[in-house]
């Protein structure tokens, strides 16, 4: 796509702005990348979740910094210091619930963001690196969330940390040495808690860095769009501000209503009651489950009756996403024009929910069997269905431009609308 011509915003002619821009073109950057940045005019509300994820990251970092001011990373004091935040610190309960439920909100938003990418083929050329960076962010988020969950030092914190770090013991020969190294001892204990706190504080800033790369990669070719076809010219685009700033703000408003509902009226729903019991290294809770956002992966882990196999398959379920741009052999991006893919897409979503359900069940009986079937379908989606679909599917005819179906008419209508706009 050719570089998009635009008229600089009025504020750019301000002498101070000009003086700064001559030395550090920061206003130019803001103008080009945020204000006049050309975005496809047909983005639907599914495209809100990228900016929402960014806002979630900011919410988590800010609330986290204020929690850290009162948190004590020591096995003796961690649980009590969190209770002190909840009981004695001014608005401590609010900040803690924002952070606690914010993690869940962040994952909901990011999952929808990823699913949108699946549906509209946003991972396809030339956006493969953009997609990879997204997976890296997702992996970093998982690591951050896992370590953060350990910090309150409740029963689930402790046993979750024990179980997940033990995954690495599946590695042949060096596994146990790695686990001991991760722990800094012979069990999850004070050194583990301290390093998890240090890393939990660091990781969000690493995520923020990768987010900048993600945005950079995004802005090279611009956003994909519901039609999955490239923009042909200015008539296919609108400036980001005010069109998408206001649309994103509206999405944010709706998101905040959902978020506030959990924070104020149902703060415990997404958590596990056992984490309000102080960690006890001598007693394992009857039923260890990770937070809901890890359940599908947990189900894959348990689907294999072999330790190393389960661990490999679980990491494989994410690693396979890196190959997605090539496993999907269809040239058409959007599922809108891929009737067969659409069916498999919904099947895949259903499989993910089934995996999530299975991950929350005790690993026995029908739940285990269902989890295994869902695991097979999960991998089949990437390794069998997607490659074959590209060959056998007959896509619907693509529209010639974005402006055309948006305006519901031919070129004449588009031109007329341009005049009006």
């Amino acid at each position, binding site marked *: 796509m050719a570089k998009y011509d635009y008229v600089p915003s009025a504020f750019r002619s301000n002498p101070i702005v000009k003086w700064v821009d001559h030395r550090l073109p920061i206003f130019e950057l803001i103008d080009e990348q945020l204000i006049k940045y050309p975005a496809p*005019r047909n983005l*639907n*509300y*599914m495209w809100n979740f990228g900016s929402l994820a960014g806002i979630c990251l900011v919410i988590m970092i800010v609330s986290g910094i204020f929690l850290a001011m009162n948190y004590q990373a020591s096995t003796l004091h961690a649980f*009590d210091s969190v*209770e002190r935040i*909840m*009981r004695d610190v001014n608005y401590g*309960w*609010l900040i803690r*619930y924002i952070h606690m439920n914010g993690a869940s909100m962040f994952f909901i938003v990011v999952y929808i963001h990823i*699913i949108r990418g699946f549906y509209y083929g946003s991972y396809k050329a030339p956006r493969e690196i953009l997609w990879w960076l997204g997976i890296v962010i997702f992996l970093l988020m998982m690591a951050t969330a896992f370590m953060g969950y350990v910090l309150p030092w409740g029963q689930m914190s402790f046993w979750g940390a024990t179980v997940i770090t033990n995954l690495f013991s599946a590695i042949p020969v060096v596994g146990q040495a790695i686990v001991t190294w991760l722990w800094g001892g012979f069990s999850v204990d004070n050194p583990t808690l301290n390093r998890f706190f240090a890393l939990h504080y660091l990781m969000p800033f690493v995520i923020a860095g990768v987010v900048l790369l993600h945005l950079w990669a995004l802005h090279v070719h611009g956003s994909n769009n519901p039609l999955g076809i490239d923009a042909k010219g200015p008539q296919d685009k*609108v400036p980001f501000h*005010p*069109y998408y700033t*206001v*649309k994103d*703000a*509206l999405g*944010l*408003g*709706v998101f*905040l*209503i959902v978020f*506030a*509902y959990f*924070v*104020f*009226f149902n*703060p*415990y729903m997404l958590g596990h*009651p*056992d*984490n*309000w*019991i102080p960690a006890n290294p001598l007693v394992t809770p*009857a*039923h260890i*489950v990770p937070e809901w956002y890890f359940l599908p992966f947990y189900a894959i882990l348990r689907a294999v009756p072999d330790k190393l196999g389960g661990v490999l398959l679980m990491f494989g379920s994410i690693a396979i996403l890196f190959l997605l741009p090539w496993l999907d052999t269809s040239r058409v991006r959007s599922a809108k024009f891929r009737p067969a893919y659409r069916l498999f897409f919904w099947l895949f*979503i259903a499989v993910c*929910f089934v995996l*999530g*359900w299975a991950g*929350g*069940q*005790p690993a026995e009986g029908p739940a285990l069997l269902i989890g295994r079937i869902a695991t097979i379908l999960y991998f089949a989606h990437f390794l069998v269905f997607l490659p074959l679909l590209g060959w056998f599917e007959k896509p619907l005819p693509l529209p010639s431009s974005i402006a055309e179906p948006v305006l519901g008419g031919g070129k004449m209508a588009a031109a007329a609308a341009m005049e*009006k*706009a």
Partner: protein
Amino acid sequence: MRFVKFLAVAAVLAVSSAPAMAAEVLVPPKQKWAHDGFFGTFDRASLQRGFQVYKEVCSACHAMKQMRYRNLAGIGLSEAEIAAIAAEYETTDGPNDEGEMFQRPSRASDRFKSPFANELAARAVNNGAYPLDLSLIAKNRVGGENYVYALMTGYADPPADMKIADGMNYNKWFPGHQIAMAQPIQPDGVQYADGTPATVEQMSKDVATFLAFAASPHLEARNSLGVKVMLFLFIFTGLLYATKRKIWKNLH
């Protein structure tokens, strides 16, 4: 719209899978509480009666380490009343000028006095069982205060085919149905100052209310701020919707 459809499907799946996840544990029946709902506030009279039950019955064995006497302001006690209650218990302080720890009457800022010095001391006296800290019991059990109520009222004769171990008691709502604690709440176990008949149900309800308060002392602040925040967000989102419509009108 596909997006709305997707969210609807997701919501239905999420809701339908939630009870399934909890299927393994006993879910105690939901009681009606004054602190339920968006506008819920604690029943002050019930809180005070509940504290009396804790103080006269439960506190013989169960600590509440997260609670401090000053927190009793939240159940409607005055500063003088709190000071008087605190002074009934001794707190270890020190060291004094001779370097010795000493006992002094508790102050409002002290934690609730624990009945036992540590877990081992508690087990030694209680036949090997450990009476749990009750500070967060209404949060760390499935069902919360409903569980407390169900447990307190759940003592009964065991089914004919069930063998109860020595020193254990049958309870409908305890996991495994065998609990070391004998029925703690007996009819007229306490004498309520306000004349409320001290039935097992009444006392259970009161103590569950108090424990719910102890676990979430900020519940009322949370509800009242939450209602304001929600109201604000609805108006704000409405305004954003109008603005968005207005701006996008030129394009469609």
